């Protein structure tokens, strides 16, 4: 099973849903902050790769958040 790709996308979508009260820019910042604070770097790498491979599969906020990751 290679469920990890799915896992990272599921996780960012879950996080984003819970940040829905924020404007997009703040949501992207908060999402990036959450990822940096709680995710192992290899998960971030997998997310980056997935988003880079197909930006259309995720929301623009996720794309923006990934771009902000250090």
């Amino acid at each position: 099973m290679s469920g990890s790709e799915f896992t990272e996308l599921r996780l960012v979508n879950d996080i984003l849903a819970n940040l829905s009260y924020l404007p997009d820019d703040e949501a992207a910042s908060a999402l990036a902050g959450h990822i940096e604070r709680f995710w192992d770097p290899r998960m971030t790498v997998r997310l980056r790769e997935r988003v880079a491979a197909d930006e259309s599969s995720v929301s623009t906020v996720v794309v923006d958040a990934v771009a902000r990751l250090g």
Partner: protein
Amino acid sequence: MSLHTEHDFGTPAVDGPATVGVEVDGLRVQVPEGTSVMRAAALAGVDVPKLCATDSLDAFGSCRLCLVEIDGRRGTPASCTTPVADGMVVHTQTPKVAKLRESVMELYISDHPLDCLTCPANGDCELQDMAGVVGLRQVRYGQDGANHGDAEKDHSNPYFDFDPSKCIACSRCVRACGEIQGTFALTIEGRGFESKVSPGAGESFMDSECVSCGACVQACPTSTLQEKSVVELGVPTRSVTTTCAYCGVGCSFKAELRGDEVVRMVPLKDGGANDGHSCVKGRFAFGYASHPDRALKPMLREKITDPWREVEWDEAVDAVARGLLDVRQKYGVGSIGAITSSRCTNEEVYVVQKMVRAAFGNNNVDTCARVCHSPTGYGLKQTFGESAGTQDFKSVASADVIMVIGANPTDGHPVFASRMKQRLRQGARLIVADPRRIDLVRSPHIAAEHHLQLQPGTNVALVNAMSHVVVTEGLVDQDFVAARCEGFDEWARFISGEEHSPEAVEPLTGVPAADVRAAARLYATGGNGAIYYGLGVTEHSQGSTMVMGMANLAMACGNIGRDGVGVNPLRGQNNVQGSCDMGSFPHELTGYRHVSDDSARKIFEDLWGTTLQAEPGLRIPNMFDSALEGTFRALFVHGEDIAQSDPNFHHVSAALEAMDLVVVQDLFLNETSKFAHVFLPGASFLEKDGTFTNAERRINRVRSVMKPKSGKHEWAIVCEIATAMGYPMHYDHPSQIMDEIAAVTPTFAGVSFDKLDRVGSIQWPCDDQAPLGTPIMHAESFTRGLGRFVPTPFVPTSERSTRKYPLVLTTGRILSQYNVGAQTRRTANVAWHGEDVLEIHPHDAEVRGILDGARVTLTSRVGETALHAKLSERMPTGVVYTTFHHPISGTNVLTTENSDWATNCPEYKVTAVQVALARPGVGADAVGAADWRTAAAELAD
């Protein structure tokens, strides 16, 4: 160490200044107003003879042994029921009262077996003691008259016997059952000579409502209620004070021994968490520690299909170290990690996370709190600034409104539940939010004013609706919010939205809007409002949101920072709080400081002499994903049975099978050890030496009652592994580990074994400002300065009931069993719960043709198992419930990978399922539940 006996002052202490002066037998003493003459005398050093009185129970005045004379008063009043008065002069040893006492005692003994020498309580019997104290030398009435010598004995309880022939009808057992435990299972049946103690309506103890807490046994002054272990082994001769290793209440006990054998566990009267009370698990279910299933030798095997091979410790430690180094060399520094256990001591957890960070070289350490209370840590940190509950347990005695959300205290945290029920009987008002009608909703002398019977998965919608009422009806504590909080205006705008109104969310929650409004008004205006919650809050996809939602509600109502209020997690295991405190989350060092915090990291780097990673490591679910991906290859599992306790067994087992090295340290060869290459024997709580931290942040000492049966302490084994990996770790004693914890952790700065031995227990933060600890947090300001309101949108779980899976399964625990049952299944507690059953509403059962006791299949989208059905109107229609105490049930074959958005805590509480009558030869029933794993694997294939 000798047998520690606690002084019994006869009647309970009275709070208040010692303003009343009394003279007792020429000794002067000052006591608070309302103190009994008996207690004042005891405080002066004069113990008045007594039988029906004990200081854990209100005075009763029935035995007439404690009679005294008081200057200026007529007669011989009972000292237990007579309050002191200023200037009172009391005489406890006059010829008149001596004669009366001797006569009273003579009557008692005339109807009591004269078998002291063969009685199991010989030497530990208050009747025997008092006969000596009053100088009884003869019984004039003989033994030939009517007596109770032939009264039928009751041996039905697995832990204690009831011999009514020895009963003196003092009612201590009856009162203990009511006043302390709050079950009211016992009564005095009949009148006069026919009076007798009776469980229920003339039932046996096992058939009655008795919950076997043992309060009656402890209160009994004779051998009428007697532990079977004392009958079998004899009266204990020495004791060691230690801490229970079951739930997060953290009760203090005296382990009483005869020789090296534990005879009984007696709750400590001065125990900060339990004040002398206990439950059936803590008092009686300690036999697992000496169960023959204990694995006491290290074991190795090349492949998980090989048989185990017992080895010596050196070989095992070398194999673990070599295996971890090999994997790290081959797959990189992030390929290895460990899981700490909330069953282990702070010192054990600390050395495991130190081993990971310093010897493994990464932050791949997580704790089993991941799957229970990680949302508590996140949510309370975000809002209050500290990942811990706000109150001490005693605080509930000052609560006016108690709100219990997603917790079942009478089963999960029974000793705290008894404390809570005492307050409820005094008049505090109760709100329960739970899909099930838990016992607290209605039990003797207690009734919830509101039972908000919400649909599983709608907690956030409910708490938002309550906050909506508070804000829109002008019930906010404006002064508190203005002075103590930030972010209120933004949050108030959010929560005022009509979509959060009780009327709008009623279709989601299923709770009538009027009930929500009434409950919110009660919480906001009823005086001190206290929230207590459990895994029914955290184990959801919105667990962290719900914790923040409760924090918002409490702040809005000003219910933070003083006695009787607060937001209080009821932690599942004995050291959940401690394992989190000790830095076993992959993103946090001890004291909840983030690994990216350079200044915090430097403290450790300087002390440990190494460089630490500044980025978080893998959480438990991420470890499984990475194992399947191939980047995580070796795991040290310390005292946790992840194969049984973690969700989606197929996923977990596949991940474990994918690893090159799995090391399990535990008391027993558990389910996870089936996937292990190395097994290291652990130490039971009776063998451990260290500290546990309970749900109220109370650090308690755990003392070795006996040496480790495996020959080594667990902290020492971890140090040996780290050292063998090339990072030397050495301590001579666990006190040195605590000293190191104190040196690197500001909230533990003032903690040491020496201080704990002196003061008993300490609630962190403990530092120069609070050298004896902090029972109530956020009193003047929040840990983060201002309390932060956080908007909490309700995001429904993606786990929905469908036509294929129309019911929602929710899980929990019961009183007699504990978690995955590794301990309690190896005790006589199985008498109460021999198997997990499926509770289902009669209507849901009827439409499926299911009768009570029928075997049913339970199917989710990830697995199937079989259980026996129990028809129960506790359940709402559409929701079914089971426990996970027996591995044979395979509950986590059904649960999914859904998790809390912020912490990845699994969503155990919501799984869409279908239930069907099991047909012989079909599905899970065909193979029998014992083979569910095989069946599940076949289904997966």
